[in-house]
């Protein structure tokens, strides 16, 4: 049986060597990981702004496309990502605003994209959410998100706000809620309305 001192030294050396190795690797790979995380975010913004890009683009390419096409503007307190398409393309100018708030289980974050009139929704995306899979988690599904396209962020009377509800009737600012996910829908509606309020204020 080896002594306690030996055991302690052994543990110390093994632990230090492993820690040093991992620190070195983490440091070396950091720029790549950061580029990936940024590409992921840019990817979301490009999608919601409907900027055309090749489907198999690498992280570096995505960052480049993003920098070439999307401008970050400050409108009052609001941060806006604006896409101005090249003159010869048939896509139109869009802008995106981030929104976030508490969901049912954790934070929900996403981007809302509007047309040039700052009134018509052209897309919505959620890049972070932990809602119940199959119920609240359906907010990321395409059927739910596609409903928003073409909707207005103000009602017929011009009051800002969007309604996520399964009630009867249709309105230019109403989309269907997800059955079984009332809590998530209410919370998403609240965080969207908060973002919409600041958009209308700053317009």
């Amino acid at each position, binding site marked *: *049986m*080896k002594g306690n001192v*030996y*055991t302690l030294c*052994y*543990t110390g050396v*093994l*632990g230090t060597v*492993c820690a040093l*190795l*991992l620190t070195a*690797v*983490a440091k070396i*790979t950091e720029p*790549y*990981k950061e580029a*990936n995380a940024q*590409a*992921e975010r840019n990817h979301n913004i490009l999608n919601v702004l409907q900027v055309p890009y090749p489907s198999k683009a690498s*992280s570096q390419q995505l960052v480049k496309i993003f920098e070439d096409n999307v401008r970050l503007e400050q409108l009052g307190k609001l941060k806006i990502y604006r896409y101005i398409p090249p003159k010869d393309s048939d896509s139109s100018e869009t802008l995106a605003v981030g929104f976030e708030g508490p969901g049912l289980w954790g934070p929900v974050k996403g981007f809302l994209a509007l047309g040039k009139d700052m009134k018509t929704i052209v897309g919505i995306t959620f890049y972070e959410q932990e809602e119940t899979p199959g119920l609240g988690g359906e907010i990321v599904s395409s059927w739910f998100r596609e409903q928003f396209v073409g909707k207005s962020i103000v009602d017929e009377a011009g009051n800002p706000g969007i309604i996520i509800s399964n009630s009867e009737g249709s309105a230019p600012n109403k989309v269907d809620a997800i059955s079984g996910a009332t809590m998530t829908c209410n919370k998403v509606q609240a965080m969207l309305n908060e973002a919409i309020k600041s958009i209308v204020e700053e317009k």
Partner: protein
Amino acid sequence: MADKQLACMTCQPKGLCGGRGLLTLKEGAWANNPLAIQVLGICSALAVTNRLENSLVMGGALIFVCVGSNLLVSLLRKRTPHRIRMIAEVAIIATFVILFDQFLRAFYWDMSKQLGPYVGLIITNCIVMGRAEAFALQNPPVLSIVDGVANGLGYAVILAIIGFFRELLGTGEIFEYKVLSGQWYTPNQLMILAPGAFFALGILIGIFNAVKGPEPGEKK
């Protein structure tokens, strides 16, 4: 086990480690297959096999970790105090797993997202720890590497087979290329979902055992 210890310096003309190399390889990859015979590490095998590509990467990860940890545990086997050997093994395994995870995150981001927590969970995979404890602690480094390759391969091949059939039947694709045409084949979603994994693994274990026959001394 001590009497079986073979020094690799004296490799016999018969082959690696006096024929023990080939035996070890066969034992790990076939006769004592960690997944199909010992039924270890099935959590990850069920979770990541919905696509062939995922299965292959996961298999590669396990081979890498198994070989690395077996080699290091074997090199340190005479210096490691017996009382803390398990902690030392886990530290070594965790180091290799995190190395692989960092590599995926940096250069293979999409795959890293798809495998999610399962790469990190290799640390708790019974196969890796089991080989370090049962084999690498008693055997010389070269033989331990062979054992790591054998068991990693045993796991990877099974994963690849399950991944192949789940992707083929579940989506009609292989490596995301359409193989079974949509005109006459309706993809069976069940194969992509969790129950499909259980069916596939269960059937595979059944076939494996039927082909291999009963253990010596086991009543039929």
